């Protein structure tokens, strides 16, 4: 048996799954003053009278880190930033204290100028003055050569904790994002650590001795211990949980649109050949661009409870919510009211929904039914327009080879999967609008918890080899070592897969989950003068994100 738990803004949902069947679900309201308490209460409720000894693992999707960042309840951070030549780095200041130091490593990982230890001593003094505990050290091109970050962090280690090093968070190039990601990691470290400690304590008390994993924004999991070290990876895992949940009901290897239609917003995601699409670089949170790998998700201000107004004789739906639907005692008409009038949703006071539609209809010269149908249809049109717009963007994303430009894959959805309160009511409309089948899973109220339960561990490694320099770098693992001049792309791929396996077991992968793949590979001849001086090899490998297994019996296919 496995347990999935999703801590949402309004509810904590939990689900118990055994061999692809949902055994039980539990739901409790989220107490924002005691998030850990809410989780524990829901788990207790789910596991009451269950055979705890047959639980294999517990997967949590939590908003602890997200909330800490969004609400600004984060620790002060001392930043050491080595920017080298390029853009003026002053815009990167993000911690309580930012020290910009000299020193520079170039794009091939060659040290152009060493850092100055005296500048680090100054940083230490300043951090100490401001009573800062958490630090981060980030250098330009540190993924090509992390030695500056490693050596600087050694000088800070005795006095500060954590000392996040930029190169450990991602193998992708983007110095500003590396700075922000490292900053956020240190900033949420203590909040997340205390959450982890509470979980461990409670588990011990209840005598539950199973691995606990946390969900990441890329729809995969990591062990609680690994999460504690790099908590930034746990931000914004909600859309990931919902996509994974929806995927559990509609597996397959086609392209598809996934919609999570809520009260306030609709989240739009995609799968390509059955695999979820990722943000190209990483997710954005509170105006910080990060390198946190995340499922691509666009949130639009359109949901069942979106406020409807008439502007210049035209109906405007959203983008804000102004309270409950009128059927539930709100003061502004909503799409939910329209769907209640049309008999597609059944809750609240239908008369109040009718008067909501009358209020709009009077301004437009339409009757109640006509108004409701108009609003219902308009919602479908808005979703379709937005999806098409996003698809255009995705399909025109920059490519860098002639082959990709001429023959690259274009995303072309074959079906829609919709979850959320109004999903079922909107499904027939979406089918017509998109001319595609639209599936609404049965247990969609707990889709996020299901997604969390079934998510597999994910990990990524980047192997960069420069045979002219005779150096190899694996940033996410802090590896920087010598290689032979004859090192080949084949060896680089083998190395990537082997390291990925090591990394995976360190963060909690069980053997049957391990399905590694090479996601990017290139090898450039470096020519100096008229002779090949070496090869510049770049490999990225990942554990294929996905589900432990698909759900049986619960599909509405």
């Amino acid at each position, binding site marked *: 048996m496995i347990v999935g738990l999703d801590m949402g803004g309004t509810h904590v949902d939990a689900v118990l799954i055994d061999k692809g069947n949902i055994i039980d679900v539990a739901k409790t309201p989220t107490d924002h003053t005691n998030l850990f308490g809410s989780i524990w209460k829901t788990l207790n409720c789910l596991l009451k009278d269950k055979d705890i000894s047959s639980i294999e693992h517990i997967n949590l999707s939590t908003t602890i880190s997200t909330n800490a960042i969004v609400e600004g309840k984060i620790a002060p951070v001392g930043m050491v930033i080595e920017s080298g*030549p*390029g853009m003026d780095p002053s815009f990167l200041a993000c911690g309580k204290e930012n020290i910009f130091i000299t020193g*520079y490593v170039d794009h091939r990982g060659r040290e152009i100028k060493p850092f100055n230890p005296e500048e680090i001593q100054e940083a230490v003094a300043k951090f100490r003055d401001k009573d800062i505990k958490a630090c981060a050290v980030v250098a330009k091109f540190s993924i090509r050569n992390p030695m500056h970050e490693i050596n600087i962090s050694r000088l800070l280690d005795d006095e500060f904790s954590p000392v996040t090093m930029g190169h450990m968070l991602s193998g992708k190039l983007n110095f500003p994002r590396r700075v922000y990601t490292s900053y956020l990691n240190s900033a949420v470290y203590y909040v997340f650590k205390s959450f982890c400690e509470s979980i461990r304590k409670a588990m011990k008390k209840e005598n539950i001795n199973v691995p606990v994993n946390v969900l990441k924004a890329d729809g995969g999991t990591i062990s609680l211990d690994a999460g504690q070290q790099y908590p930034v990876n746990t931000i914004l895992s909600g859309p990931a949980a919902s996509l994974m949940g929806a995927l559990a009901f509609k597996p397959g290897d086609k392209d598809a649109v996934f919609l999570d239609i809520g009260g306030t917003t609709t989240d739009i995601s995609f799968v390509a050949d059955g695999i979820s699409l990722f943000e190209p670089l990483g997710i954005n949170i509170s105006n910080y661009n990060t390198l946190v790998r995340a499922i691509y998700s666009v949130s639009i201000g359109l949901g069942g409870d979106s406020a409807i107004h008439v502007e210049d004789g035209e109906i405007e739906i959203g983008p804000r919510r102004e309270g409950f639907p009128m059927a539930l005692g709100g003061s502004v008409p909503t799409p939910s009211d329209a769907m209640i009038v049309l008999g597609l949703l059944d809750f609240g006071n239908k008369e109040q929904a009718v008067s909501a539609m009358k209020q709009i209809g009077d301004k437009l010269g339409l009757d109640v039914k006509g108004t409701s149908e108009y609003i219902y249809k308009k919602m479908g049109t808005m979703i379709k327009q937005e999806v098409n717009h996003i698809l255009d963007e995705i399909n025109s994303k920059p490519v860098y080879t002639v082959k990709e430009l001429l023959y690259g894959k274009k995303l072309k959805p074959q079906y829609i999967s919709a979850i959320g309160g109004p999903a079922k009511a909107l499904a027939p409309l979406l089918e017509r609008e998109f001319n595609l089948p639209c599936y609404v899973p049965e247990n969609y109220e707990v889709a996020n918890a299901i997604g969390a339960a079934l998510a597999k561990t994910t990990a990524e490694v980047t192997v960069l080899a420069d045979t002219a320099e005779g150096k190899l770098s694996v940033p996410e693992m802090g590896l920087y070592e010598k290689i032979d001049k004859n090192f080949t792309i084949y060896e680089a791929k083998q190395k990537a897969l082997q390291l990925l396996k090591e990394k995976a077991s360190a963060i909690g992968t069980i053997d049957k989950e391990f399905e590694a793949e090479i996601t990017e590979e290139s090898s450039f001849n470096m020519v100096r003068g008229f002779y090949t001086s070496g090869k510049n090899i770049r490999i990225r490998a990942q554990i294929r994100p996905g589900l432990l297994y698909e759900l049986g019996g619960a599909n509405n296919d």
Partner: protein
Amino acid sequence: MIKAKNKLGLVFFPAFDWAISPTHPEREERLLYTQDQVFEEGIEDINGIKFYNPDMATVKDVERVHFCVPDVMTRVTQSHLISAGGAIKAAEMVMEKDVDKAFAIVRPPGHHAQRVVYGDRGFCIINIEAVMLENIRQRFGNKKIAIVDTDCHHGDGTQDIYWNDKDTLYISFHQDGRTLYPGTGFIDEFGGPSAIGYNINIPLPPETGEEGFLYVLDNLVIPILREYKPDIIVNSAGQDNHYTDPITNMKFTAHGYAELNHRLNPDIAVLEGGYSIEGALPYVNLGIILAMAGLDYSRVKEPDYDPEKLRQSHRITEYIKELCDKIYSCWRRKDDIQRETIKNKQYISRSRNIYYDTDGIRETQTQKFKVCPSCSGVNTIQSRSDLGYEIFAVSIPRDACKACIDEGYKMYEEASRGKYSKVYLQDKVNDVFMSK
């Protein structure tokens, strides 16, 4: 998040799977380190900077500019069409006001490609700026355009294409042709009979540094542009004046390129040459991107930058001052020079030998321009290459009068297929291209 002052479109297409040959300077690796630098700086996250994929230029786009022998698809690869298409995309974004400025960082380059194309010259087969400009002129109306070519080599192809077109002012900075390929670009190459003065060459001595380039810009180029009042300024942004470039002898820097771009303030920049792929390109391209976006570029410096080593000699400074005075006075006298040149002539011809260094082809050609009082005049090219081709091409200019149009068609019809292996007609008024 950082915000650009100017909305900037980047068509960044490194063509990582295309090379002239594995060890040729124009190879897969050429923009690799530029991409590293651009990605690492987080350029794509700057609010106001947007990346675009190139479009593909069409055969028709190419035929508006060139006479490819025997035809376009025999001479170009898809990479050439993508490179020109990248330039077109950049210009289109500017014309449609999606962005304020655009930079096409594409390869291969194009400024050595002349009107007639038998093969590859100086790594160029089609002139990507010219293909771009003639495409947007067809779609957005004829514009007065200035091309400022900052490549270290003389842009002899662009000069040839716009030789007789005073709607296109061509200004080229380059290392003196007596010391560098293609050996042209002297100050007396001043434009065809209808555009005398609208082709300006500034041959600079080897070892010219930042000071010299900026002096030429401030004291010659910008005053001329101010008088010419172009609708669009294009920077043909070759980067081989850099002090680390392996095939030239100048002392220009990344910061200098950024400063030059900032002062020139072009609407569109298109990458041309530049083969110091590691020491220069990442920094020069970053500098130009920041300058075009209106962002601070003062910290863009090469790892081995040393201002002392890069200082230009006093002798060069003095030489450049005199050169600028001389060229500027020619520009001021351009109408007189035109009158003296034309006098009562009805046709003006010029004959040239052209060498295709990359492909090893020799061409001899004669261009004949009609001196027409009401338009730029129909003109023809007779050309022979040592590949065995002999061609005759008629070109009707964009502003052609009825008489010149009729004359052009008549010449095309009368040209005998027996004598030539190919006969072409390029009618820029009606956007028609024919060959037989």
